């Protein structure tokens, strides 16, 4: 007995309401961007500079007491938050203390950190500092720049690759889908105020890669079917292609999600934000490869005659043999 995610033959019509799908996506993007511009991201120290100290103690964390202890130090903006994770034992009480960058220096003052640690030790004598990070404002502004360049570069490279392997309409479809995925991911980070640090950029790029992976598989089939069914209207060819690949699309998304969800639940709080971004990205990436990338392709139209020799052909790699 086989588990089947999708019946053997499906003929779901994905393209009768492309305007609706694209409209929903457009609205979501607008919502995401509005949130981003109004509320902004909760940047970690990688991007805004400053210091974070991770503490661990056997006694429960008393955020108020911690804050009072640090009151006298005049550190400016201090954020203290307790961290929860199912993997923590009863004597593991973890908190994160974030201190805004001190205006005086590029180099981070070790005295400040020592003073904070001493103050916290007053409150909780057994407290340990399991990690301490400081980033100077100079580096953090560069990190933002590099991150933005990395994401743009990735999207650009992909645009070129797909353009070379397929046609420009495919490339535009794929890239619109990517922008959609990246925008919605940034949107949810801004809406939920999840800390946005360097690792999230890595997650964004992975989402770009994953979403593309999905899109390309669908496009590959579209290309094949465009040759196979020369006379059928584009909408029908697209529908056939998506239905044929639907089982694979869902299988792969599901196995990836299985892996990611176990990491999300069991992987510890240090990388939770990172894994959350990827999980979210896989879900919207799967959605966008059908409802954004292919819908765009449908709206743009595509060249139908693939028999000319100057076109890149679908079985360029097919004679590789094991």
């Amino acid at each position, binding site marked *: 007995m*086989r*588990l089947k995610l999708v019946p*053997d033959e499906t003929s779901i019509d994905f393209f009768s309401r492309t305007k609706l799908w694209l409209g929903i996506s457009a609205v979501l993007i607008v919502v995401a961007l509005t949130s981003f511009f109004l509320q902004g991201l909760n940047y970690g120290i990688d991007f805004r500079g400053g210091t974070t100290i991770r503490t*661990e103690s056997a006694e429960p964390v008393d955020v108020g007491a911690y804050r009072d202890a640090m009151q006298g130090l005049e550190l400016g903006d201090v954020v203290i938050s307790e961290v929860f994770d199912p*993997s923590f034992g009863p004597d593991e009480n973890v908190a994160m203390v974030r201190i805004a960058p001190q205006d005086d220096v590029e*180099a*981070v003052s*070790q005295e400040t950190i020592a003073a904070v640690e001493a103050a916290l030790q007053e409150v909780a004598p057994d407290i*340990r*500092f*399991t*990690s*301490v*990070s400081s*980033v*100077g404002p100079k*580096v953090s502004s560069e990190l933002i720049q590099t991150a933005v360049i*990395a994401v743009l*570069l*990735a999207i650009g*490279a*992909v645009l070129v*690759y*797909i353009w070379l392997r397929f046609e420009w309409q495919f490339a535009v479809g794929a890239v619109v889908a990517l922008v959609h995925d990246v925008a919605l991911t940034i949107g949810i980070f801004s809406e939920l105020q999840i800390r946005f640090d*360097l*690792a999230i950029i*890595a997650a964004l790029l*992975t989402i*770009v*890669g*994953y979403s*593309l*992976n*999905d899109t*390309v*598989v669908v496009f*590959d089939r579209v290309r094949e079917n465009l040759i196979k069914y020369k006379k059928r209207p584009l909408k029908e060819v697209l529908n056939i292609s998506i239905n044929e690949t639907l089982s*694979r699309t869902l*299988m*792969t998304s*599901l*196995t*990836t*999600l*299985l*892996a990611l969800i*176990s*990491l999300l639940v*069991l*992987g*510890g709080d*240090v*990388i939770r934000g*990172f894994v959350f971004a*990827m999980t979210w990205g896989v879900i919207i990436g799967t959605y966008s490869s059908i409802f954004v990338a292919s819908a765009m392709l449908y709206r743009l139209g595509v060249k139908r005659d693939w028999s000319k020799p100057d076109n890149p052909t679908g*079985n360029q790699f*097919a004679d*590789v*043999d*094991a």
Partner: protein
Amino acid sequence: MLQIDLWKRVMIWAAVAAGIALAAPNLFYNRVEQHNDAVAAIERQGSTDELREQASGWPDFLPSGLVNLGLDLRGGAHLLAEVRVQDVYAARLESLWPQIRDALRPLRDEIGTIRLQNSPPDVLRIAISDPSGQGAALQAVRDLAQPVSSTTALPQGGAQNIEVSGADGVITVTLSEAERAATDERTLQQALEIIRRRIDEVGTREPTIQRQGAQRILIQVPGIGSAQELKEIIGTTAQLTFQPVVNRGTDPDADPGVGEEILPSLDEEGLYYTLERSPVVTGEQLVDAQPTFDQNSRPAVNFRFNTQGARAFGDYTAANIGSPFAIVLDDEVISAPVIQSHIPGGSGIITGDFSIEESTNLAVLLRAGALPAGLDFLEERTIGPELGADSIEAGRIATLVAFALVLVFMVLCYGLFGIFANIALILNIGLLFGLLSLIGATLTLPGIAGIVLTVGMAVDANVLVFERIREELKTARGPARAIERGYEKALSAIVDANITTIITAIILFAMGSGPVRGFAITLGFGICTSVFTAVFVTRLLIVTWFERRRPKTITV
């Protein structure tokens, strides 16, 4: 139909076996690590029974490469330092002054007296009393200019190392743009080398010391207690000089003469020395420094100069018996003994108020050499070993659970073919670890996430093929044909889909740093191994099974 040549089969299995063999040491991480450390220690300092025993914990003939654990998994310290390259400009100019003086002396008749003026550190100003001789003086100084010698940059149209200009009887000398660039380059190289030596002296495992960009150095040392400790090891410049003493006093703000400076005493508070700026000898001329004890059994540091330094030191002591000279470390006077006699041998002892630890550290610092310039720390991170251990544990459990879920799911969906895919998936992880060990890659926490993601995505290529085989079975030209066509047709999708992911992995690797880079590596290699196992290994498994059983029909 469904033929795979014998040699190809052998190659595939050989590749898999090699990968697994390379990955195997990671299963015995602690034992292999101990073995490797012991072997390295034996090589460095000779063999002892204890070391031999530790080394025998893992047989020598087996591969012993391991995946390095990143800072976030092992704990340790991370620093990003910017080298203050401008520091060196002043020293370069100062060293030019004696030459310029010597070049101008013969022209006294024309230019009158020569005097060094106070100036910002990156400029040298020389006043001459007779402005009408300015042209000649300029010419003489310009003649001293040399072509920039650079190790990396191409000679930039024969650029000169200094720029000389004159106005109203004042000659201004600055370093040229090209010389600055070349100096920066040398400073960076030197700083890198010295930081590396200092960290090696302390003897920690697998430190990363990398240049980043034009002026920065990234330092990661696993196992060290804190960033502060690391800073103490590398942050001290340990600039040692021996300078003639002009005067001593208690006023730090007294006006020093031109070419002189006022420095505080290290031990005696409130005591300041006025010293001549240009040193007799510097720490660069040291060949050795060892911790020792002075005649009163107090910790001290013994040092020896190279021939050049020994001669300069010998000549100076011979000529200045009875006058004090200062031993200066990082702009503080350690001591200022009076020269009792001519010291010809080029060795000596530094005494001061040291503890044993301080004298040992000072000796290490002197031996490793002085940092050519100061460092600014732009980024510091300390990760405690417990947090690292927790992260590894969480990562391990999550990976195992993810693995189990995917394995079960694949069997549920594809039956026997799912088992083939699962074997390939397990081999895939083995190969991935083998590759990572082979290149000595660093595994970070996001790197573990990369592996988990690979587990999820690795089945994708198999899924593509299996789905395709299902479709081909519908057109019913026999199972063998379906399998063959399934592979053929799925290939272009597999290749396109994975190349796009590889592109993003490469960009991540190029732009990212630290943990992110670790993620890019596991993701990139994971894609390579998963394509290999899906396209070659699973296929070989299926073909082998098919040949044995010759089923009339198959269900995927």
